[in-house]
């Protein structure tokens, strides 16, 4: 809207051309510079040309404007000022600024039009560049000469402040847009409030919209200005966005603090309210920080705990666990530690340790009550099962006792009636019942792991093959059996009879797991383990093993069942169908033999039980006396036998049986009586003693007896004995063992075998006089 020359008086370039137009004679005189700028012939120009040649070189786009301005001069306008384009003598288009004056005579008739023409091409270009730069950069410029009421400004300057575009504005107008308490945009030279580099940030209210904006002003005081006094010259630009971003950042920072505080409060609340123990523990084990739950649960004040080692409050048996947790690099869960509370009671705490840097972050949950409840539950389950079992056993035993008692009663009546031969049938029946009862007690002992094992060198492969027929009959027609054994099987060290029993047990379980038929596979392999091998229910320890695996294709079992399958009394069978002792017996036998049991199972796929039997090393253990030793009862020749037995009936039976055979029998009810006989010097050749005597036990009696009578043969009688589970470890040379119940024949055989080592008898035998 504003013409290019509006309000400006562009600096006249050096070497401007000049013209004089004599209107009355219509002759234009121009100098060489004018001529070269307009392309006019310089000679013609100087000599004088028709007035219309003034328009020589003016580009067509600008010609009309120039003509209008000249026409105005010709009609009385005194001032002429136009900027327009001309094509110069070399054909180059240039911007020129023409300033001229019309002069009239007294009558008002225009007589002369003269002026100067300057090349402002460069100036226009610079101005244009500046304008583009200002618009593109949103930068407005200003210049204020000291002492003046107005400042020269750019359009962009006006736009930034919301002022109407102008080339000059009063200082008051400019500074009136500034909000109170902000420095003025333009200040006099004496103003000292400007920041370094004349930089200020100030808030303005736009003159047009009233909107508040942030403006940065950067200015410079110039000592002197061309054509004026000292000046203040500079630029302004809008920094509202930057300011807003800054404010947002500050707001964010401020609220961040608040948020962090809130979070911290939340954490503190958890720390304070938690019923679990929470602690920060140094790698050295010292408690660095503890939460209030410590005093609530354990009764220790914070001050007592801080700095003290955690281990100090931990049960000595758990110190190793603590040390391991403190050294761990990875988080550890379910670390069970017993902690002593202020009243010296132990609390069971389930810990989670998370190591981080030089400290561990630990939380501990009190599981004392839970563990107790679990134990109680387990105990009550056990009692229930024991009740069930004892009920079943009592029932079985009653049947068997009925058979024995009735048989004996009937036998006695037949004998009394003089029909002795008829008595045998009943007596045989009684013996059969008794043998069944013996087998049942044997099984119970196996489950309790208090059976007396007789570990021998066992060729497991051969044993399994020998059982094939038995197994096939047991499994029935619907279950296929496959038996495989690797050829170079090591000999295993275990009780062959128990292994047979265990395999039978497993086979029966497998059969029951395959109600619709299937396949049972028994494999025997050797296996050496250098490190613990993960397995259920427990890892297999390193060692050499003969492994017997029994696999079925049955229904399998869920994990919950698998976890309990070796527990005593656990059974999946209906009440009355199983005792729950089968797998427990297997487990007991294998563990007692120094081996391991592994089980794997998948529902719908089948179950595999692996028996890891220890490889036999060194010489085979000494063969014991077979408890079932049979053979003709040989007559004795009056050898002396001391029988020590607290059970009167048993003592009576043993004494009677031995006397029948021909032994001279001495009797004692306990160790003291026996020792008196020993000290009394009465001669006898064999000590037969019950292991489980009241007071001093049979083993101790035997040792004392040996002190009095070295090499005295001893025959132990045992129902079960916790300390005699492995025969070979219990017995010294010249000592033997017989397990209750036993037959008269077995007793006779055992006594005869024992007497073979008697020194007194050897002496007698070597004495020719006897």
């Amino acid at each position, binding site marked *: 809207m504003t013409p290019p020359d509006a309000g400006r008086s562009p600096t006249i370039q050096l070497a401007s051309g000049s013209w004089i137009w004599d209107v009355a004679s219509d002759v234009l005189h121009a100098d060489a510079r004018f001529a070269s700028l307009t392309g006019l012939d310089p000679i013609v120009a100087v000599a004088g040309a028709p007035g219309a040649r003034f*328009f020589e070189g003016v580009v067509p786009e600008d010609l009309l404007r120039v003509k209008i301005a000249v026409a105005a001069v010709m009609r009385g306008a005194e001032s002429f000022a136009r900027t327009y384009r001309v094509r110069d003598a070399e054909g180059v288009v240039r911007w020129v600024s023409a300033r001229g004056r019309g002069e*009239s005579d007294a009558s008002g008739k225009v007589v002369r039009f003269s002026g100067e023409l300057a090349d402002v091409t460069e100036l226009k270009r610079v101005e244009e560049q500046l304008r583009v730069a200002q618009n593109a950069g949103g930068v407005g410029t200003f210049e204020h000469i000291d002492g003046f009421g107005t400042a020269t400004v750019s359009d962009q300057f006006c736009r930034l402040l919301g002022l109407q575009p102008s080339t000059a504005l009063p200082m008051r107008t400019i500074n009136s847009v500034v909000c109170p308490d902000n420095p003025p945009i333009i200040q006099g030279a004496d103003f000292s409030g400007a920041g370094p580099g004349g930089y200020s940030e100030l808030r303005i209210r736009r003159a*047009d919209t009233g909107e508040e904006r942030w403006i940065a002003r950067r200015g410079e005081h110039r000592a002197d200005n061309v054509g004026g006094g000292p000046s203040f010259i500079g630029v302004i630009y809008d920094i509202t966005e930057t300011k807003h971003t800054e404010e947002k950042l500050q707001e964010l920072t401020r609220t961040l603090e608040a948020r962090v505080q809130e979070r911290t409060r939340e954490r503190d609340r958890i720390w304070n309210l938690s019923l679990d123990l929470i602690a920060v523990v140094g790698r050295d084990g010292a408690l660095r920080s503890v939460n209030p739950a410590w005093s609530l649960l354990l009764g220790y004040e914070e001050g007592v705990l801080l700095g003290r080692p955690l281990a100090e409050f931990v049960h000595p048996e758990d110190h190793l666990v603590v040390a391991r947790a403190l050294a761990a690099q990875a988080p550890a869960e379910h670390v069970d530690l017993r902690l002593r509370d202020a009243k010296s009671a132990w609390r069971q705490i389930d810990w989670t340790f998370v190591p981080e840097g030089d400290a561990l972050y630990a939380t501990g949950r009190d599981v004392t009550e839970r563990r107790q409840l679990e134990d109680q539950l387990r105990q009550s389950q056990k009692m229930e099962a024991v009740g069930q079992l004892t009920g079943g056993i009592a029932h079985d035993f009653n049947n068997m006792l009925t058979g024995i008692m009735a048989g004996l009663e009937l036998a006695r009546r037949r004998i009394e009636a003089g029909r002795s031969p008829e008595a045998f049938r009943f007596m045989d029946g009684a013996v059969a019942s008794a043998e069944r009862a013996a087998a049942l007690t044997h099984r119970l002992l196996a489950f309790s792991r208090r059976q007396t094992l007789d570990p021998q060198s066992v060729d497991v492969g051969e044993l399994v093959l020998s059982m094939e027929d038995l197994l096939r009959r047991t499994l029935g027609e619907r279950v296929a059996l496959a038996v495989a054994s690797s050829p170079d099987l090591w000999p295993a060290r275990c009780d062959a009879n128990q292994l047979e029993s265990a395999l039978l047990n497993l086979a029966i379980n497998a059969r029951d797991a395959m109600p619709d038929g299937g396949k049972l596979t028994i494999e025997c392999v050797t296996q050496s383990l250098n490190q613990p091998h993960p397995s259920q229910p427990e890892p297999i320890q390193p060692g050499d093993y003969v492994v017997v695996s029994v696999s079925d294709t049955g229904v399998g079992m869920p994990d919950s069942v698998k976890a309990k399958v070796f527990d005593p009394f656990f059974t999946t069978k209906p009440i009355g169908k199983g005792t729950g002792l089968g797998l427990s017996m297997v487990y007991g036998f294998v563990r007692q033999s120094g081996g391991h049991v592994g089980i794997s199972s998948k529902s719908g796929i089948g179950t595999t039980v692996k028996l890891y039997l220890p490889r036999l090393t060194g010489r085979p253990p000494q063969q014991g006396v077979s408890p079932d030793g049979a053979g003709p009862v040989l007559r004795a020749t009056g050898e002396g036998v001391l029988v020590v037995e607290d059970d009167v009936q048993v003592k009576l039976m043993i004494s009677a049986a031995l006397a029948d055979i021909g032994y001279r029998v001495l009797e004692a009810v306990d160790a003291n009586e026996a020792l008196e006989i020993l000290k009394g010097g009465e001669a006898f050749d064999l000590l037969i003693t019950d292991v489980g005597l009241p007071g001093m036990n049979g083993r101790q009696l035997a040792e004392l007896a040996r002190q009095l009578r070295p090499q005295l043969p001893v025959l132990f009688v045992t129902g079960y004995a916790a300390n005699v589970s492995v025969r070979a470890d219990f017995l010294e040379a010249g000592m033997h063992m017989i397990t209750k119940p036993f037959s008269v024949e077995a007793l006779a055989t055992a006594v005869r075998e024992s007497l073979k080592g008697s020194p007194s008898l050897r002496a007698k035998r070597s004495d020719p006089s006897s």
Partner: protein
Amino acid sequence: MNAPSVVLDDLERDAMTELVNIGVSRAAASLRTMVGQQVMLSVPSLEVVSRATAAVLVREREPDSLVVVRQDFTGAFYGQALLIFPETNSLELVRAVTGGLLSADEAAGMEDEALAETANVVLSNCLATLANMLERPLEMSLPQVMRGEAARLFDVSPSLAADAVVLFLYINFAIDDRNIRGYIAMLLDLPSLEALRSLIRSFISRIVGEGVPPP
């Protein structure tokens, strides 16, 4: 800025500026005769703005109080012509015009009269030149002096429609080597502006063809 719906193009604006330029040149000649001193008047530019914008322009450019001399005109187009000075300048102008013959007190005493007379010379010459150049007669009222704030200046005539536009012209006074700035504003309603424009067009075609060789 509220741009009027009828605007002059560059050429028309140039021509209008020159018309006023001729007018003030004649006024300067009259003043020279009156005061016997060198007086130069020139009009460097013209803006066509709305009344509201004109008020803003004046307020921003002249924040101090103003002295305004107003003359109404009627004819082919009608409206008001205003000559505007900052109040501080008006006394300067009076002194310059009276050529230092009066004391400061005397000048102050006859300020209004001197201003009205000076303005009458300027405005009358401008309007007379317009009428002459555009070949349409214009009748003018007597000059009237007003003082006050810019906002009120363009609210002077209820007879003008709200959409009236203002031809806003700078005017430089150079009297006795003193520079005094002022403004000439012509308030016109749109029909008047339209009439003025067509007269300007005729003027242009007349003068370009007259005594000027074809390009």
